[in-house]
């Protein structure tokens, strides 16, 4: 059964957020999006909310706590470590890819240049997670 998702989007760039919202506004399935501007804000949201998101979409390049630091913190937290996390980044740096996989991720997406390609990849990722069963926190 296709479900609508609770998604935590961790992204600092305003236009990237606009791109994401514009993409999901055109999807058939309605998802609930929580936005965080950096790792610190995202952690606040995770620590203070009773219900955890189904999926985290994580940018790597961010001020304060960056994506890798954030990932390492949640992977070492017993409550948070089951939340599937997909990296959304502009860097295909091999060290970043290796580091993320080492820490544990559910996907690594390099944002394509063209908005239409970007939309298509976000849609594919969300379509996949719509059909998944999650560990309920």
């Amino acid at each position: 059964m296709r479900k609508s998702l609770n998604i935590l989007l961790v992204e600092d760039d305003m236009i990237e957020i606009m791109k994401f919202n514009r993409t999901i506004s055109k999807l058939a399935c309605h998802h609930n999006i929580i936005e965080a501007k950096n790792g610190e804000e995202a952690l606040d949201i995770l620590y203070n909310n009773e219900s955890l998101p189904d999926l985290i979409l994580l940018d790597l390049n961010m001020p304060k706590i960056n994506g890798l630091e954030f990932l390492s913190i949640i992977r070492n937290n017993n409550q948070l470590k089951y939340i599937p996390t997909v990296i959304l980044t502009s860097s295909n740096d091999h060290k970043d890819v290796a580091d993320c996989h080492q820490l544990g991720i559910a996907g690594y997406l390099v944002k394509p240049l063209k908005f239409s390609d970007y939309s298509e990849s976000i849609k594919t990722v969300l379509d996949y997670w719509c059909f998944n069963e999650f560990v309920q926190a």
Partner: protein
Amino acid sequence: MMHQKEQLLQKLKYQNEQLNDYAHLVSHDLKSSLRSLSALLSWVKEDCIEKIGEESVGNLNLMEAKIEKMDQFLEDIINYSEIGATSLKITTIDLNKKVSKIIDSLHIPQNIKVVVKGNLPVLNADARRLRQVFQNLISNAVNFNDKENGLIEIGVEEAEDLFTFSLKDNGQGIPQEYHEKIFNNFTTLGYHEKSTGMGLSIAKRVLDLYGGEIWVESEVSKGSIFYFTIPKKHHQ
């Protein structure tokens, strides 16, 4: 005297690394700005396509193409600056499989054939770096081929201590005066939408790492043969 030389070398090495890091960082930042520009542009186009005239739509398309080209430029700069900055990951590579995989991944038009002549060797090398060499040479040969039936032949000759690979095409050929210049950064001889002039310098830099060489023999309008060598025992 010796001491001074060493110090100077150290300093140069350090500065080179700094420069590479800098190129890497700047390119990444510029790339994300470009990504934003590209999205905004596509929205403006989407929203206005019926309200603005044909000429303006044409200009927006040109802007899109320019952004794509600049993105490719930055990607190439990142690739170039990464060579030598990160250590080589050596694995055993069957070049027959590797090269046919590279050929499959390129968008090769129907009228151009890429054939591998004979059996390619198995090498111990860094797969990504090696791919850059073959990919850049093959896509150059494809992109700049002007013949009705393009033919690109990949071959190899084995000597005691090295392999000499060759990539022969029946394309436009390269005038003698450019035979060395083409391996410099940002040198491109013809116009192609995807060409940034970095392909051959990336290939050369990778081969430098292996102690290999690259050169070209060519006759204008008949075609070119690119040769490159990879020593069997490299310094790494």
